[in-house]
Structure formats: structure tokens, C-alpha cells
């Protein structure tokens, strides 16, 4: 079983903080707007601090989830299939046979480029969440994974993958 590069936590935590900031901004903004306008006359004075507290708690929870996600994530290039284990709340274990691989992408978002990481995306013809992505790989490892997936997919290709 292979773990992801520990650095991927930086990407996930950064994303979690950005998202929590946006959400918290809306929440606190709404609270301030409620206080300033006379839309809600008897607005309690605790409203804005409460909104800030909720936003902070949510941000902390998101960061913890991002941290935990790294602990759960595992993948393995087995003989006949790709095995992936992930998910903090809903634990998902996916088996994607190489025969079914349609194509393989390697993807790098700006944040991933900044941290020197890459994501490999595997597409199948399946209909249900079976387009699997392996994040948090070093570019060289991503290339290796992509290459071996490609090779394994070709080797095992019997006939049409549908």
C-alpha cells in the first residue's frame, strides 16, 4: 500500500482554509448586515461574535478533516487492478481493473504546482463515481504511475472496454 506524499496536506489544508474563509466571510457578513440594518429589530448583540465563533470552529473542523484525509488515503497498483482507499466520513474502497481504463490524465492545479505535486486521473467507462483520481504525487511519481497504468491497461486490453 502506498501513501501519498505528506506534502499533500499543505494543499488540502490551504484549500480548506480558503473555503472556510469564504464561507465564514459570508456568515459573519450576514450577521453584521443583520445588526446594522433594521431588518431584525431585536437582534441579540451576541450575533456577530457567535457567527465568528461558528466560522472559526468550522474552519478548524475542515482543517482537521483535511489532515485526517491524508491518514486515510492509500492506493496500490496491484497485478490486475488499481486499489484505492479514501474518505474520512464515508470510507470508500475502490477496485478499478486495468482492462477498464479508458485513458489516464495527469493534472496539476496552481496550488499543486506551487507545492510540487501532481494528480493522476483514471477514466473508466463506468457511470458512477468510478473516475478515480490519485492526488498528492510527486511529478516524477505521477509520471511513473501514469506510465505504468498505461502499460498495464494496454497489456490487459482484451477487447472493447465497454
Amino acid at each position, binding site marked *: 500500500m502506498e501513501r501519498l506524499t505528506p506534502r499533500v496536506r499543505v494543499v488540502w489544508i490551504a484549500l480548506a482554509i480558503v473555503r472556510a474563509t469564504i464561507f465564514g466571510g459570508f456568515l459573519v457578513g450576514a450577521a453584521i448586515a443583520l445588526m446594522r440594518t433594521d431588518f431584525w429589530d431585536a437582534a441579540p448583540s451576541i450575533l456577530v461574535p457567535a457567527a465568528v465563533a461558528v466560522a472559526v470552529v468550522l474552519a478548524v473542523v475542515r482543517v482537521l478533516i483535511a489532515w485526517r484525509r491524508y491518514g486515510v488515503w492509500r492506493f496500490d497498483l496491484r497485478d490486475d487492478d488499481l486499489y484505492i482507499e479514501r474518505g474520512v466520513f*464515508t*470510507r470508500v*474502497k475502490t477496485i478499478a481493473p486495468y482492462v477498464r481504463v479508458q485513458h489516464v490524465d495527469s493534472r496539476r492545479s496552481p496550488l499543486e504546482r506551487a507545492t510540487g505535486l501532481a494528480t493522476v486521473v483514471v477514466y473508466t467507462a*463506468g457511470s458512477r463515481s468510478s473516475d478515480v483520481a490519485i492526488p498528492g504525487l510527486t511529478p516524477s511519481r505521477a509520471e511513473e504511475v501514469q506510465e505504468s497504468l498505461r502499460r498495464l491497461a494496454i497489456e490487459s486490453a*482484451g*477487447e*472493447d472496454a465497454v
Partner: protein
Amino acid sequence: MRSLHPASVAVRSLSRSLNTGFLFFVVGIVVSPGGNGTDLLSVGALVAIGIVMGIIYEFAYYRRFRYELTENSFDVTSGVIARRDRELPLGRVQNVDIRQNVVGRILGIAAVHIETAGGGQTEVSLQYVAEDEAHRLRRQLRSGASAETSDAADSSPDETGAQATESKREADDEKLLFEIRPHELAILSVFTIDPGASLLGGIALSFASGFDPATLLPTDRIAGLPGPESGLLTLAWGLVLFLLAAWVISAALTFTRYYGFRLTRAGDELYYERGLLQRYSGTIPLGKVQTLTVSESIPFRWFGYAALSVETAGYAPGQSDSRGTESAIPLADADRVAELARAIEPFGPIDLEAPPRRARERYAVRYSLVVAAIVGGAYAVARYTAVVRQWYAFAALVVLVPVAAHLKWSNRGYRIDDRYFLTRTGFWRRTTKIVPYYRVQAVLHQATIFQRRRRLASVTADTASSATLLGRAATAYDVDADRGLEIQATIEERLQNRLRARQRERTVERWFRDDESPDDDPSAEPGDGG
């Protein structure tokens, strides 16, 4: 190269000129001179221009449209302004549909739609060709596709000869599998709820009432009642009328849709025909079946009826414009459905393994929470309004919890067959899915936080059928977590075994073919054709 049926110009331009005519009608209204009022003459002239343009376009379309069925591909050259050459390898054809509306039936023309696995929409539409040409194309595409997949090189390029032998073979091996009986059609029509019908029902009602809903209400009778009750009664009366109209229309729609439903088997394909006013027919290649779904909805299950649908990668249940086309059998005795499903995929008996009992506890907890939420909501409503007074009366719903939990639990199950993965779920609409291991694309083992508390998990065998919002994948819900891992490993292992077996078969076949071209059909099992 062949062209479309000449009458298609007339039919196409009729529908086209309705569009363009309306467009130019709007344009005419907007730009008509004078400002205060529309000039009938110029609007009429613009509409005429629109219609003429539509006819010219359709004539050009007809002139430009050419198609040809070659030995291993179907080529279409089309397009008036932007030209397009399209080549469809015959081995990749998933479904061939023929549709005929009322006008088409009078003129003897039909539309042919050809589906492949890729893309979101129909790959080739021939609108319109002559009726017998449509059926000839269907047969040839079918035989071409099967010849292509078994790599036989004996399809004769001599068209007339091929056609003659083809039609002879057609008569030989086209076997009637299923024909809907009048009482089945009646039950189907009465109990099917067509979602589109409610809208049509509303429209019909508003027409019937002359756009004044009040005329339909027996206000003189209700008026005697005091106070707010009459308002409620009026509302209820309106609702009843609306439901009645929707139900009648739904029944009529379903009746015309499935009237004269026949399913035949020819070689390695199923062929269905249906429809009273609009005739639909199409093929379902058995070699490309991804999933079989046997569904038993609640009123039908009481009568011992079931429905069967066959999913291929071309399209699947819920594809909007071909609603129902994929259903192999709309309604029949459950035994007959099982028999027919086995004729398509020879799966074993459906004695399913039930999920562990602690899954039932989970459902009970879930439904208790729902009841608690309802009571809480009722309390809130009672606290702040005067609509509800005895909010605690809703707590009586709690007696339903064990029943509901048990029904949910007892309708779920799965089975690891030799060659198929069977799953069942749903009380109101019980669906049993049959997935050949060979068709599995990925296997997912999922456990939510609540499932993990009870060491449960759901195992999904994903296939390539283009599942939509309602078309759910084959999932064994709430099995023991460790057993789930076992199931997952087994499915993957059997998939690999099937693949290796097929690889061997193909190799052996190739040896034989190199030796001498064999006469017998080497396609091994119906469920496994490429």
C-alpha cells in the same frame, strides 16, 4: 450512396416551416410598420418567407444527405452549411431504433436512429427513409455488427444476394418472445403514473373549464357550508379533479405507448415494436447487455407482475427522448419475466442473502429519527400557529417504524452467482439488478460513518450503462463490512477469470479460423459477446 426518402422533404419542411414560420411571425409582429397595430399583409408575407426558407433548407438538406452501408461501417455525409462526414464502425453500433409517427405511417416513411456508446446523444439519425428501407438497414446493421464482432469475413458485398439470404434467415430465426396481452396492457395503463401527464392534465382542465377554474366547482353545493371549511373543500375538489384528469391522461398515454408491444429475438439481438399512433421499434444487442433490471412496483407486485429492462451502453432508462424504449418487457407475469431474463442472461436462482439483522436496527433508528423530526416540526407549528393543536398525535407514527424498517430490510439482498452479481432493493419499487461479472467497470466498497458504527458497508458493481438520476447502479446495501470486502474481491477475481476465459476462447477461435473457416457460430454464450 443512398439518399433519404423524397417524402422526407415534405414532412421535414412541415415541421421546419412551423418553426421558421412562427419565428418570422414574431419578427413580423415586432417590425411591422406603423407602430400602433400590426400590418396583416407584411406579417403574412414574412411568415410566407419563413415557410419558403424552411422548405428550401429542407430541400437542400435532402439533396445533401447521403448514407451508405459498407461492409464494416456506416457512412453518412450530411449538412447544408457545415458539412459533416461520419463513419460508424459496425462493431460499435449499440442500438438501432425505428420511429414512425402518424404522418410517417400514412406516407410509409420512418426515422432511423443509431446509437453507439460514446457521446451524449444519438450518433446518426436518418429522417426519413422508406419503411422497408428502415427495416432493411436495421437487419443489415445488426448482421454487420455481429459479423464484425465475431470477425467473420464472409459478409457478401453483393447487396441483393445478401439481402435475399438475410431476409430468409430473418424468417427462420426471428422468434416471438413476448407479446403484451390486453389485460396486462390494461393493468399497466391504469396503474402507471406518467410524470408528464400531470402537466397535460392541468392544461386539459383549464381548457375544459374555459380558463375559469370556478366553473368546475360546484360552488352552489359548497356554499351552504360555513366558514373556512368551504375553502378547504373547494381546494380538495379542485385537487381531485386535477388528479382525475392527470390519471386519465396518464392511462391514455401509457396505453398508446405500449399498445401492441412485441419482443422478438433474432440471432443475437432482441427486437421490440410498440405504439398505437406512433410506432417505435428498435434493437437491443444481447452481446452488449450491461445490466438486467427486474422491477416490481407495488401495485403490480400485488398482482404478481413484473417488468424487465435491459441496459446497454447506448442508452439507459431515463434518457429523455426515448422514454421507455429500453424496457424489454413493460409488464408481464413475474415468472415469465424471470424466464425471459434468463433467456438473455442465464443466471441462476434468485435466492438472495439477506443483510445482517443489525442493518434492520439501523433502519429502525433512521425512521425513528424521521418520526422525531416530524413530531418536532409539529410542535413548532403548534407553538407558533393555530393550525395544529395536538402535535403529540404525530408520535403515533412510531408504530410504523418497526414495520417500515422490516420491510426495507426484507426487500434487500444480494447474491454472488457463478457469473452474475445480483442485488435487490426497494419496497415500493423493488428492483433486482443482474450484472454479469464480465461487464463490471469498477467495484466500490463504501461505508458511511453510521454504517461503520455497525460494521456494515455497501458494495457497488459499476457498469458502463449510462445511468442517470434514477438509474441506480447495482448495489448490495448494508452487508457485513468484512463480507463486503470478500464480495468485492470475489467480483474482481471473477471478472479477471472471465476475461482470461474469453481471451482463451478468442485464441482458440483464431487457430480454427486460420485452419479453415468454420461454419458453426463460435459465439459462445449470449451474455458475453464483445
